[in-house]
């Protein structure tokens, strides 16, 4: 087993972008894509950028908090040889933990609702992780509760990163996502938009950006109803509120209708060559609403992943109809 690569919240700088000693050294440094064309009606003085987190090695933004939480566990001794990494996750965090566990030689057990997509189950299995299913009727809260039961049975056997309560989750974004956005926009970012799942991305990145310029607006995209189809996002008013989520730090929340987010995913794929997940459609929905209200500014939205892992899901149930309706656009 390899030793912990570094202490928590530090990262191995890449000397060049081609050679890396570990897959984990490739987490972060994701690109910004100019998607201003997707905000028709915004003034020419507004730019909208998507930060494409799908370029992380585990395929999503969740590589960042997962890596920070595991490194912190190793640094504090909470994670040590003989222990198994366990957490409840609807997917992307699970994939990230499974990848990291495989890379570091630690076993991983994940609790997830049984209605997560087939691709996710297979990716996690390919990383060698064990999966325990909770009822799809209970959503992610059911997985949280089942994971607590598992831990209760044998607390010494497990290391639980607990993305909903671990301060390393927002810290990962304070240390990496925030500085990358600041540097890559040369400090011109005025508005930051991210969906809320655990709240880690919007909290940590928002805190960093505000520390550089307190005028930067931090905006969360949230499902507009308790029953929604925006995988990875939470409707806070009806969910177990994550301990790391502090709504008072947000400047604004924008409710996103699932159907509109799905339609934006279709548009991104078929008109712009970017196949993404539904939470990216939600982020774009919120970002373009912000963009249209501005006289000038730079809006940066987090696109948490790419769309490959959703191709078997209901996200695409309306695709043929959308094509028929938009044939002559």
């Amino acid at each position, binding site marked *: 087993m390899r030793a912990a690569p570094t202490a928590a919240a530090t990262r191995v700088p890449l000397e060049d972008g081609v050679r890396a000693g570990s897959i984990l050294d490739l987490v972060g440094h994701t690109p910004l894509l100019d998607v201003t064309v997707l905000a028709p009606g915004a003034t020419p003085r507004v730019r909208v950028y998507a930060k494409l987190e799908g370029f992380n090695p585990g395929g999503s933004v969740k590589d960042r908090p997962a890596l920070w939480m595991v490194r912190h566990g190793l640094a504090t001794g909470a994670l040590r040889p003989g222990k198994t990494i366990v957490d409840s996750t*609807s997917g992307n965090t699970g994939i990230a933990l499974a990848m990291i566990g495989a890379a570091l030689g630690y076993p991983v057990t994940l609790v997830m609702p049984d209605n997560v997509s087939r691709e996710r189950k297979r990716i996690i299995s390919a990383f060698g992780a064990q999966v325990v299913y909770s009822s*799809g009727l209970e959503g992610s809260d059911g997985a949280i509760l089942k994971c607590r039961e598992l831990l209760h049975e044998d607390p010494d056997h497990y290391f639980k990163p607990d993305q909903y309560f671990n301060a390393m989750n927002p810290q990962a974004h304070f240390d990496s996502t925030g500085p990358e956005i600041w540097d890559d926009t040369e400090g011109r970012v005025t508005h930051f938009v991210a969906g809320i799942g655990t709240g880690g991305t919007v909290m940590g990145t928002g805190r960093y950006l505000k520390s550089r310029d307190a005028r930067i607006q931090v905006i969360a995209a949230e499902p507009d109803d308790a029953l929604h189809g925006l995988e990875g996002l939470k409707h806070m008013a009806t969910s177990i509120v994550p301990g790391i989520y502090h709504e008072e730090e947000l400047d604004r929340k924008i409710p996103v209708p699932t159907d509109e987010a799905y339609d934006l995913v279709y548009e991104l794929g078929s008109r712009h060559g970017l196949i993404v997940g539904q939470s990216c459609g939600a982020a774009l929905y919120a970002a373009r609403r912000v963009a249209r209200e501005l006289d000038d500014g730079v809006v940066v939205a987090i696109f948490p992943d790419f769309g490959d892992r959703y191709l078997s899901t209901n996200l695409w149930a309306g695709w043929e109809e959308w094509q028929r309706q938009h044939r002559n656009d």
Partner: protein
Amino acid sequence: MPAKVRIPTPLRRFTNGAEEVGAAGATVGAVVNDLERQFAGIKERLCDDEGRVRRFVNIYLNGDDIRFLSNLETAVKDGDELSIVPAIAGG
């Protein structure tokens, strides 16, 4: 005996917290209408303006997805079990 309908967490605010309720009807669509009669507002969560099941909602009849049966026209017998399952897993 009406059909049994299993209600997911996000919709239990309509059913006073009940996880399972009874609803009558000869088809899934009729059962949904009976749910609406009992729990006003629930149908709008399940179906779009044109009355079709929303993309992000799955309805199972005795374990089979109604999209692969006859959708809302699928016949329902007394004692059948309908499950309304969010198509996604949440946060």
